[in-house]
């Protein structure tokens, strides 16, 4: 912070501009969701909670929320288990194709969602699996595994083998060493990855688009409103989605801070 000069001011101005550019539109959506006007215009004339009322009365919207939450929760848990197992395997064992696995496991994150979506839809069609919430969950798991694999693998590599070895040296079988030593030390990593995974799943459109049967997730529903015309209800819906997306991140932040503070205080 010591250096001052025109450069620093310029940098601050640009940083501010970037933040404004990112957050003002989001703020506007939140604001307009409370606006009493039928169309989103500035200045806001009156405040109302009507749009939220409409939101909670609409069965379509409520179902979409429940579906999104269900998909995100199940996909996160399943991907979490599979990703952790893969990460652990890659860390602990040498097996043929390990290098290949480490490379292709990231593919679903890199490949455009549309491609993954089409590919999965084609495959489900071939094996005559009808599109349903389950197919959406399967689609989300494909790329969420990569999230868990990467973070878990990196953390395990950072941890090294000594911790686990010392547990075994002290009489723990491999399974017990994993449960009583490895897993507790993955806690923060898993929590962080789960937050990211949940949010990614909750917001996902491209893959979901191709795998949706008759039931819509929240982003798909909002997207469908584009055809019928945007009503202020969409603003309310977006605001609630935003809150749902942010909640786990904030919670994780609080938990993380809490753990760190405990550590320092102890």
């Amino acid at each position, binding site marked *: 912070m010591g250096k001052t000069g025109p450069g620093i001011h310029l940098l601050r101005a640009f940083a501010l501009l970037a933040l404004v550019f990112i957050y003002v539109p989001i703020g506007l959506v939140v604001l307009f969701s409370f606006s009493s006007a039928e169309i989103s215009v500035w200045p806001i004339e009156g405040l109302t909670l009507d749009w939220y009322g409409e939101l909670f009365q609409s069965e379509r919207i409520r179902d979409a929320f429940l579906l999104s939450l269900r998909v995100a929760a199940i996909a996160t848990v399943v991907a979490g288990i599979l990703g952790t197992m893969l990460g652990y395997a890659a860390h602990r064992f040498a097996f043929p194709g390990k290098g290949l696995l480490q490379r292709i496991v990231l593919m679903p994150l890199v490949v455009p969602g549309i491609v993954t979506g089409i590919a999965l839809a084609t495959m489900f069609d071939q094996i005559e699996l009808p599109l349903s919430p389950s197919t959406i969950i399967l689609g989300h798991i494909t790329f969420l595994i990569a999230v868990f694999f990467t973070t878990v693998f990196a953390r395990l590599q950072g941890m090294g083998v000594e911790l686990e070895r010392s*547990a075994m*040296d002290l009489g723990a079988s491999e399974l017990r*060493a994993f449960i009583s030593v490895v897993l507790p030390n993955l806690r923060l990593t898993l929590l962080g990855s789960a937050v990211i995974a949940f949010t990614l799943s909750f917001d996902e459109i491209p893959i979901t688009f191709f795998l949706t049967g008759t039931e819509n997730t929240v982003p798909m529903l909002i997207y469908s409103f584009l055809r019928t015309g945007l009503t202020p209800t969409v603003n309310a819906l977006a605001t609630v989605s935003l809150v749902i997306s942010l909640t786990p991140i904030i919670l994780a932040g609080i938990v993380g801070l809490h753990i760190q503070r405990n550590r320092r205080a*102890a």
Partner: protein
Amino acid sequence: MKNSVDPGGASSASGDALLALEGISKYYGDVRAAGGIDLKIAGGEFVTLLGPSGSGKTTLLSVIAGFTEPDEGSVILGGRDITRDPPHKRELNTVFQGYALFPHLDVTKNVAFGLRMKGVPKADRASRVEEALEMVQMSSMADRRIDNLSGGQQQRVALARALVNRPQLVLLDEPLSALDAKLRKTMQLELKRIQEESGSTFVYVTHDQEEALVMSDRIFLVHNGQIEQAGSPDDLYHCPANRFVAGFIGRNNFVPGQVEVRDGETCFVVAEDQVIQIAETGLSGSAILAVRPERLEFSDSRSEGALPAEVLRTRFLGDRVEADLRLEGGTVISLYSNGTGVENSQNVFVRFPREHCQVLPPE
């Protein structure tokens, strides 16, 4: 438990050894980490596996602990073959190089871990943990978190965590390497005290010869996957079996030449007019003469056993002066003196005291 030069040390532990390695071999591709190693260790010993990095000493430790499976050979602990036992079934505990304390547990829970795994009742656990912490003088830190401990304190906790299980054998993998020099010195004495107090058998791995000399009852000097020599620190220092041992333990000078018998006396002939009288040796013909720098002396004249040399340079080391000297054959040797003035390029005579000359086989 003292024994003389005996590569492998197979005969040094009389009768039932606590730990025996029999013909342990381990190859990593073409690299030999252990080439048919035999060793025996008796109960209550403090034994050091000493060797440069890459010598295979850590592989041996890992084979004993059960983390590395040997290609050939057996590990016998307390008379039982444990070669195929997984680590958690072996009656031994390890102090790891990085301590490997569990960061999610406090000091007490770390130390109690082994007891918990073995199903020791809770009441016994508490008293045994207390006892172990007391032995390493960490009782006051029982409730601390691991990341609030200094390196030396972590070291003590790691030791307590191993000792609390009352293992037959404690393995220590370069446990002092992460500590600063001063703390290392203190911990060397501490380790020795704790080993004696607990009556446990310690197998200690290090590349630091000084550490090995200070603590060990016996040293196994490991090099290229083989044991070069096994014996007491005194043996290894004063009666090295070969040039590697003589060079690895302490500083040494090496002068090539011939062992001959002249006029009934055993002599070491460096050149036709440069002859040093030595004690009788089993060797003859080409050999290497090893003399430690602190044993060499300046001599006023070409008296018995003195060789001409030129002073290359001198270094002031506080308690002594180190001089590099070139013998006439070109061999450079070092000599420690208490500082009587010699100058660079000065021609001097160096006396090789007969009782401190060791004759080693040629390479």
